[in-house]
């Protein structure tokens, strides 16, 4: 049995798009038919749960009972991946708590796979976050995510300064989430469905929806780019998960790139055959 993987998504600042990144990750894992469960620490409203209600539980990460609910079941759950969307300001305390309960050590021993997605803010203060987080992480895979979806401008980063912080976390990987057209982002919010469902023009119930094809197209293009970043970093391999052979044909996910099989053939090809 493959070792379980825990993905922690967080930031010490609010409004940097943690939940958006969590949603793209859940879509990515579902697309690859990887059993996943998610924990939403936005108690009590639970933003992530609104989009992925079937696989998401709302928890209070600061409570021992909920910590037990997450980490004591990592080995016993059917899910290959446990994803935790950590509320703003709680990333460092959460990592600190994980260290205390021996979870970081377990990762060090190779008993579990720990992956941290650190969503960076646009200011120099984010670099201090990296320094703090780096102290908590030794054997975790560390992703530093620049999230441009909110039209952030990473203005205050001097390359040399950035590199000095970056080096504190060995094997860290940088991911850039591109900007999504504002109206498209709004419409997915209003629809309260996963990005993949929006693209597939489906409601949360699975029934047919009537979302704008233009906005669906923009979301598809954007999500393709985000997933390309995950592919580039070898995320699936890091998580120790394997993709099911039929994963790409999974329902309620993105259609395979390119035109459908029954598309008309280009006219020149037909002409050549008839010649």
């Amino acid at each position: 049995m493959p070792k379980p993987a825990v993905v922690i998504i967080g930031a010490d600042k609010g409004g940097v798009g943690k939940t958006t990144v969590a949603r793209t990750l859940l879509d990515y894992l579902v697309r690859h038919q990887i059993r996943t469960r998610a924990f939403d620490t936005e108690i009590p409203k639970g933003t992530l749960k609104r989009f992925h209600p079937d696989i998401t539980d709302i928890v209070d990460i600061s409570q021992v009972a909920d910590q037990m609910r997450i980490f004591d079941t990592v080995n016993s759950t059917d899910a290959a991946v446990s994803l935790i969307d950590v509320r703003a300001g709680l990333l460092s305390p959460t990592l600190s708590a994980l260290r205390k309960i021996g979870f970081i050590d377990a990762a060090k021993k190779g008993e579990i796979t720990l992956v941290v997605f650190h969503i960076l803010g646009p200011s120099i203060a984010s670099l201090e976050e990296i320094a703090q987080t780096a102290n908590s992480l030794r054997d975790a895979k560390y992703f530093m995510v620049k999230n441009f979806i909110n039209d952030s401008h990473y203005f205050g980063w001097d390359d040399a300064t950035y590199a000095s912080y970056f080096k504190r976390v060995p094997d860290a990987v940088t991911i850039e989430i591109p900007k999504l057209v504002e109206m498209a982002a709004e419409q997915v919010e209003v629809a309260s469905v996963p990005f993949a469902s929006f693209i597939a023009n489906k409601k949360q119930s699975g029934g047919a929806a009537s979302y704008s094809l233009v906005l669906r197209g923009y979301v598809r293009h954007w999500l393709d780019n985000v997933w390309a970043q995950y592919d580039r970093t070898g995320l699936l391999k890091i998580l120790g998960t394997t993709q099911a052979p039929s994963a790409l044909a999974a329902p309620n996910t993105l259609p395979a790139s390119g035109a459908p099989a029954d598309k008309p053939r280009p006219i020149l090809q037909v002409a050549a055959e008839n010649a």
Partner: protein
Amino acid sequence: MSGETVPLYVVCSPGRSGGRTLVSRLLTEFYVLGDRPVAAFDLCDEEPRLADYLPHLTTIADIDDIRDQIRFFERLVADDESPKIIDVDHRVFKNFFTTVQKIGFFEEAHRRSIAPLILLVGDAHPKSLDMCATMRRWFPEVSLLPVRNVAQKIAMSEPDIPAKERITRDSLDVPSLRSSLRMLIDVQDFSFCRFWRAKPANLPDAWDDELLDWLTSVYFQFQDIEVLLGFEESWTQIATPPSRHVRMAHSAQQRDVQPLGMGKFAPKKVRGDAPIEQHGPYPVTNMQKMTVQLQSAEERISAFETAIKQWQARATQAETKLLQLIQSKMER
């Protein structure tokens, strides 16, 4: 229309190649002529534009803003079974195709049984050829046909090459047209449908014939394109207008000219054993024209035979005279 597939024509040019709007006009009126529904969209900002020629059939569109894009692209895939024609200006070209690629519009069109066809109006410049290759790389799943607008080049005093020699199966050719006729069709209230149905007053017969031939050759190509796209029924009726039958036949005999596009655009698909009348107007029109040609050829053969007989008689006479001359000299 065969099945439920609906064509979507994207008439575009990456540069200032002339004739893009002309092709859009011809296509739109091709459907109007057949009493078929059609909707045209004008993505241009230079006049004269498609909307100036066909204001009642054309919607002026914009794709700069995302709300405009939603309005425009949603309308293109509306389930109204109308063929759509988009006239894409060179200034909008990049934005249009970038957006189309970004939102996966052509894939969505295919899913909705819409068959897109890009008609790329270019010229002999290497950039046009490069763009053709680029477009094919960008949209491998979409049919693309280069358009060679000879009419425009002729208007710019290019050497007159018979149009039929330039027509090929892998392009749409708008054949040569004399400058005066070019000016006539460029007038904004000129309608190809109106011209087709009745000869304009004060237009000389020879010019009427020429323009009719020109239009026929283009419309035969449109029919051919429809066949290649998979449409085999409900073709636009493009048989020669009855009012012009007699004069056209006579003029073809006089000029001994083969109608443009003749034979080049014969249907490529065998349609079973159905009677030829069920094959639509196209073969019937061809048969009419072929009959005229056959009659003309037979008359010419007959004339040649008469001439041969005359020459043979003259040769016999000359030979006889020569022999008589030789004989008289020998007798002396």
